[in-house]
Every structure is written in C-alpha cells, then in structure tokens.
C-alpha cells in the first residue's frame, strides 16, 4: 500500500521584546535563576497583568508579513493547569479570538518549486518558567526568569506532506520572524520551539488518519528526524494490524525515536475562559496600517526581486534571501561594487566557503561587506586578476589590511597589462625552454592548444601571478607561432 503523511505544526516563537508580555521584568537570556522575575511573574497574591504593547505590535507585524487577516478584537484567555513552573496555575493565552487570523507562508522546495502552507492563526501567550532537575539532590529547582516571556504561537493547517516540507516551513517562518526583527530566532536558546502533528493515510484517501503530537522539538534537524521516525512508526503500526492512538509523544534525539507521553484520555481539561484581568485588545485600522507601512521587504519579495531585477538565478536568489543578515550583506556588497552577479558569486563562493570552514555566521564575518565590495571592484576593473583576488580576500580575512586597495598595493598584486613588460617575460621563457619550443613548433594545431598552457604557467609564475592572463595567452600564441 502507498501511504502519505499529513503534517501540521505549532511553532512557538519567542518575541524579541525588552520586557515580558505582562510585566516590566527583563527578557534577557542567561541570567542567574529567578533574578528576572518580578512580583507579577511570580504570581504573588494581588498582582495583575498589563499587556506589553511591543508584543502586540510584533504579532501584528507577523500577521501582516504572512498576509493574514488581523481581527479588530482579540481576547486573552486563561488556560488552567497545575505545574510547578507555571506560577499562577494558568497560562494566559488566546484560545478563541487570536490576534492573527488565517494567512499563508510560501516555502521553497528542493526541486526549486514553491508551495503555500496555510496558517490557521497565530496567538499571543506567555511562556512558563523552567524546571531544573539536576543539581537539586532529588528535588526540582524552579527558574522563573522565562515565565512571562512573550510567545507567538503559529498554528499551521495540515498542509505538509513530508519531513522536508515541514523543515522548509519552519525555515520560512524563521526567515520571516528574523527579517521582521520580531525574534532572534535562536533555536538553541529556545526562541523557536515546535509541536508537530503527524498522521498517515493511504494515498488518495480524503479523511485524515489519527494524529500523534510530538512536543517540543527544537531544531530543524530534530524536526526532520522526529517526523521521519513518526511516519515510519505509524505506517508500520498500521501495516502490522495496529491502530494509531491520539496521544502526545516526545522525541528523544539520542535514541532517535518518539515515545508516548500521555494519551487523550489522560489529557488535561484546561478550562479556558476569558481572562478577567485583561481587556480585549482592540486594534484600530490606523495602527495596523502604520505597522504595515513600516514592514521591511520580506524573504519572498526579496527572492523575487533578486531574480527579476538583479538577474540572479533562482537558486542564488533563494539562498541569498534566506536570512536577513545574508540578504543585507549581499545587498551591501552589491551596492558597493555595482555588480550583482559578481557579488552573488563571491558571497556564495569564497565568503561562504571560508565562513563554513571556520564555522562562523555571516554577521561575524571578518571581511565586511564594504571590504568585499571594494575587492570586487578591483576585479571588475581588471586591476587584479582572479588569482590575486583570492589572495587579497584571504589577506582581508586575516586582517592584513583595511581595504583591498591597501593590500594590492602592499603585496604588489596589481595586474601587469603593459605589453612591453609581458613580452619581455615571454621572450625570457621562450629562451629558457628550447625543448618545449621545438616540440611546439612540430605539433599540429590541436596539440598546440594544449601545449600553450605550459608557457602561460611559466609566464604567470615569472610575473608572480600579476600578469593579465588573457594578454599573456594572446602574445604567447603570436610569438610561438612565429618561432
């Protein structure tokens, strides 16, 4: 039997506000436990939440970024359950009237095509604290620094059919939220966390199979592996005559498998009801329009512009628009050298390779966009040849000079285009290579084409790489043919 998977995702994005969603405490990551939790975050008797406007603005920006409906009114509800790191015994969330309505995210597939994944809604909520199970001698420590951090939960429709599509979707979300600057997108610090819903059904069947939810998968790679494992598990289960039960599962990256956490029967009844401490959020049209106008160019638009206006290939356009720092870097290089294709080649070639080798992010590149742009200028105006350019790039990388020009000057890499000087070098090489010259003279045209490489190499070597290779080639041919 042929099976197909149906995948939907709930992605929790931590919003990059300075303070928490309902209190003035800082949201900075990595502080000493419980030093960034105020009376409101601790849920002390008598405290009340006050909504952080910045979180609202960020949520709306996201909604606008995915062309979603922005409802005029959204309402906070309480989701009631007991857990030690949930200080109030309820999480303030939006169950029935979310801040962002239905929208769409375009994802890029491996075959170069794109697909639209529908977003059901996105809602604001507060994060819980953390339970620390180590170092407490059999007890559990509670760190409430994270309690009250604003989260935007983005709920997709079950529009994805494979682990790869799911990863492409998360990458697209990651790219949108970082472009918008509404999240740092740092997966390692938990700034994006995914719950994955997976079901399988016979290919062609309309009705959905029973789904399992995999909680808290926190990297692109784990999302892919967890889904792949879960699809396999469900298919095997059904083929062996079993039935998938609706349940919550946990992905264990070490064992690379998912395990049952709780079944539907054990599921909590969260007793949602509107939070009486918070007023409904009413967004007027002018506010939404103001945010719309201040929206930056988003990845999909950028990709299209790179392709259509800058003439880049679909592949280049997609890579260079994938993250905001990458796109910003590329555009800065392009602006300073005025050659989009060369800029694209350099950013994706030499720079990407070197960053990769040293495991650096583009924002940490030792070579700035202006430096790289300056270098490319010297390549396109033929001040240096391609070989010297790589030397200059490495010198910039190693901090041997502030600009390409400085390094070219210091290292004497300026391309030699003076015909006289080149001819002199050629004459010397011919004089030093009587055997090769003799062979050349006797060879036919086809052989000569191959043999000339030897002489070019000798001349370039003599010029320490600075001679213009095209000129060397042409002059050599002339002289040898006369020999």
């Amino acid at each position, binding site marked *: 039997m042929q099976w197909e998977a149906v995948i939907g995702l709930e992605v929790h994005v931590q919003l990059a506000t300075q303070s928490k969603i309902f209190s003035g405490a800082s949201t900075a990551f990595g502080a000493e436990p419980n030093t960034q939790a105020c009376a409101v975050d601790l849920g002390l008797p008598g405290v009340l939440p006050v909504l952080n406007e910045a979180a609202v603005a960020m949520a709306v920006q996201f909604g606008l970024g995915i062309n979603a409906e922005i409802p005029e009114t959204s309402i906070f509800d309480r989701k009631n359950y007991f857990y030690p790191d949930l200080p109030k015994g309820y999480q303030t969330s939006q169950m029935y009237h979310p801040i962002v309505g239905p929208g769409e995210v375009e994802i890029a597939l491996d075959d170069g095509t794109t697909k639209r994944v529908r977003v059901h809604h996105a809602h604001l909520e507060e994060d819980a604290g953390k339970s620390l199970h180590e170092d407490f001698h059999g007890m559990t420590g509670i760190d409430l620094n994270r309690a009250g951090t604003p989260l935007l939960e983005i709920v997709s429709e079950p529009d994805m059919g494979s682990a790869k599509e799911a990863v492409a979707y998360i990458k697209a979300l990651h790219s949108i939220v970082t472009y918008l600057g509404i999240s740092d997108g740092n997966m390692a610090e938990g700034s994006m966390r995914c719950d994955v819903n997976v079901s399988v059904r016979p290919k062609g069947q309309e009705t959905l199979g029973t789904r399992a939810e995999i909680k808290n998968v926190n990297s692109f790679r784990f999302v892919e592996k967890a889904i792949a494992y879960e699809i396999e598990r469900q298919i095997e289960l059904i083929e062996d005559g079993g039935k998938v039960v609706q349940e919550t599962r946990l992905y264990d990256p070490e064992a690379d498998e998912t395990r049952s956490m709780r079944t539907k029967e054990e599921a909590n009844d969260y007793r949602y009801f509107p939070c009486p*401490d918070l007023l409904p959020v009413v967004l007027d049209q002018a506010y939404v329009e103001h945010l719309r106008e201040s929206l930056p160019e988003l990845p999909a638009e950028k990709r299209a512009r790179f392709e259509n206006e800058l003439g880049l290939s679909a592949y280049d356009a997609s890579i260079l628009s994938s993250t905001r720092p990458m796109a910003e870097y590329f555009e800065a290089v392009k602006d300073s050298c005025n050659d989009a294709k060369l800029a694209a080649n350099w950013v994706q070639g030499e720079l990407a390779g070197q960053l990769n080798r040293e495991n650096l992010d583009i924002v940490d590149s030792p070579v700035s966009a202006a430096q790289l742009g300056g270098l490319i200028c010297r390549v396109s105006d033929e001040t240096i040849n391609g070989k010297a350019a790589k030397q200059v790039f490495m010198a910039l990388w190693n901090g041997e000079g502030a600009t390409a020009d400085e390094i070219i000057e210091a290292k004497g890499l300026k391309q030699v285009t003076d015909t006289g000087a080149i001819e002199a070098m050629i004459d010397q090489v011919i004089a030093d290579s009587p055997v090769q010259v003799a062979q050349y003279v006797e060879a036919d045209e086809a052989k000569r084409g191959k043999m000339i490489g030897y002489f070019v190499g000798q001349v370039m070597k003599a010029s320490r790489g600075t001679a213009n290779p095209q000129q060397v080639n042409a002059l050599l041919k002339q002289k040898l043919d006369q020999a």
Partner: protein
Amino acid sequence: MHDKTLTELAAALAAGEFSSRELTESLLGRIERLDGELNSFITVTADQALSAADAADAARAKGDAGPLTGLPLALKDIFCTQGVRTSCGSKMLDTFVSPYDATVVEKLAAAGTISLGKTNMDEFAMGSSNENSFYGPVKNPWDLSAVPGGSSGGSAAAVAAGLVPAALGTDTGGSIRQPAAFCGITGLKPTYGRVSRYGMVAYASSLDQAGPMARSAEDCALLLGTIAGHDLRDSTSVARGVPDYRDELEASLSGLKIGLPKEYFGDGLDPEVETAVRDAIKVYESMGASIREVSLPHTDLAIPAYYVIAPAEASSNLSRYDGVRFGHRCENPADLIDLYKRSRAEGFGEEVKRRILIGTHTLSEGFFDAYYKKAQQVRRLIRQDFLDAFEDVDVLMGPASPTPAFDLGAKKDPVSMYLQDIYTIAINLAGIPGISVPAGFVGNRPVGLQILGPHFAEQQLLNVAHQFQQATDWHRRQPAFGKENA
C-alpha cells in the same frame, strides 16, 4: 476621640486639640482592651502605626499636612502590605508577608493616613458572616451573639466599635454593603474600575472592588477621593478624572427621582427591615424627592449567575496557592501531586474549597456553555435592567440585606447564606456603585438602606447619602459595646 468621624478628627488634628500620636495611642489602647472579644483584627501594627503617627505630627508641625494626614484607619487583610502579613483570612496565607504594597495602600500612606492593622474577613472574601475566617468569627458590636456580616466583617465591626474611624473593605457580591448594614456604618462599593485592584488579593476579578467603610457618607467621600483613579498596573481600572467627592455633598435633593425596585421588596424581606427602609424613603420624600416603583426583572437570576461566575474566576485565581512558591506547604510531600493535594486541602477552608469545586466544574469541558457562558448572558441582562431603570430614575433604593444581622452559627447550609446577598449581588454583576447607610434598627440590630446609581455616579450617591445623614442620626448611634468611662 473614638466616636468622632474622620472629618471631625481631621479638624481636631488641624486645630491641635490632640496629636496624631495621642489619637493613635488611644485607639491602639481600645483595640488592646476590646478586640479580644470582638476579634475584628487579624494583625495589629502598633509600632508602624506609632512611627507613622510621629511622622504625621512632624509633617503637620512643618505645615505639610494634607486633609488626611495623621488619620488612623484599618485595612481589610486582603490588601497587600509590604512587610506585614497579608493572610486574606486563610491558613493558606497565614505566613505570607507581602513584599509590596497594594496601590490603595500606597495611596493612603502617601496621603498621610496611619494603618493600625489588618482586619478580619471571610477567607478569600468568600462569605457573608465572617464565620469563614481561619482566625475565627468576628462579633457584631451591637449584639455579640450576632454576626457582623461579611466578608469585610472585621472592618465593619472595628469601625462600629470605635476601634478605628474608618477602614477599607472590598465588595465582590455585597462584602462592603452588607457588613456596613449589619454594623450600622456607611459603606460604599464604587463602580467597577474606579479603584485599582492591584495588590488586592483576587477572589472574582471581574466583580472585586475596594471601597471605604466609615461613620458617614462624608468620610467615605474623603476616602474615595484618595483611593480612586486610574492605575497603570490595573488594566481594568478606568482612566477617568477623580473629582473631589465632597464637592456635591450639600446639593439639594429637590426633584431627585428615586426608584424602588419592586423585586427588592418582595418575599423574604423582613417586615421590620422593610418598615425601616420605607421610613427612610419618606425622609427623602420630605426633601422633595419623587418616588416611583421600578422593575429589575432579572433580579432572581443574580444569585445563580453570581455563583457560576465568581467561583469560576476564583477557581482560577486561587490556583497559584499550590505550596510551591509561597503560602502553606504540607509537611514531607511524597511527590508533586501529594504536595498539591495536601497543601491545598490543609490550607483552604471548607467554603473556599466548595467554591473552587463549583468553579472548576462550571468551566469544565461539556459544562462551560451551560454554566459559564449562560451566566455571562444573564449578567448582560442584569446590567441592562439597571441601565433601563436609570433611564427613568436618578437612583434606586432598597434594603441592603433582607434581614438584620443574624445569629452566629445560625446559617448552616451554604445556600441560605448565599441568599443573604440577594439585594447586593446584582450590583457587582452590573458594575454599578452602591452605598449602604444606617437607617434604623430591628431590636438592637442595625438596618442598612442601600442606594444605587449609574456607573461612576459616586458623587451623586454620596450626596444622596449625606443628605439623609443631615436629616437623621442613625449613623451617629453607637453600640453599648466599647463604651468606656473616659
């Protein structure tokens, strides 16, 4: 000094008849001598009060005294007070010392008032008799065998007994007005949103409202002006100017249109209470007010709707008392569930548990629409009843409670206790202000006249109440309890 109103005490302090320290010492002495029997205080903060009194006297000597400087009062033990236990009448918070002050506490302190301590109350403000306190019941100073009402019973009894000239209470379904009525004092529940709830331990967030309890409407006006106003820390507080509530106290009531809701004079109303209330209304007639009967047709739905909404909110609000961060924690918990179960089972009293259970049930899957949603619909109807009535009349009047104070231990089953609040609960559901003023006695037990107005009509309510107090002296009567030979 103990029988004076706040306004009179303010004048005496200003005139130098006595100092704030003398006044404070005198009242602390009365608390010391009398409160053992009354049990109106949970915590007396004598040391802090005396140093605050000295500071007030020093401020006055420098010419820095405001209208409230140096005036003693008490706070219901539901308001968070920095460095002072805030128990909410519960074993759960018996050891809880708040690290911060409630907004109203800050405002009263900034105005120079002196808190003598924290008054007794029904646990988490759930009750109508003050018998649900972990610290034991409060007695009614007019009759020590009677309850003082609840949940702000300690505040009402302390004011009535002359232990403090005024106190702050809170009112979720009648918890200021009913004890004010039972104890023969004046108590105002402001419009929902008029006074910040920040730092007030939550019972039912959409209904809770703090307000003054004092010996006169004039004193309530003075206090309300101090505690009212928008608070950036409470999103449900309303950004609306705060007038000087004393400005309109003397306005004439000639032409005032008073509505008597017929539902507030029906079955279950004690005939002697009715007589006292109708006599009070005659006083208004004599001042030139016109009286007409009105109807609030959904009145009989108020108690059922309240006992869905309030417990629902309470069940969520009280989830934070889990033994993890503060409050009561059971000994040697075996595991997390055991910690939750025993901490809560030991820390909460019976009525609190009952309401948590009711609220948990009404919010549960499968019951939410039938209970919570329906109750919210009813709530809108009740609010509309009042809005309709205020199209025709300026204020509504009726009894604050169907009976005078009942005997301690008299109401054993919860529902008969809930029915006590039949005339007060709808007001919280509608969010409008209400005031109870002393209007006579049944035997030795006081009767309260309740006056209701539209949203934010506190100024008018205080005017109407004050004019009654200019024409009568019920509010000046004092119980035999606490009368001492000077």
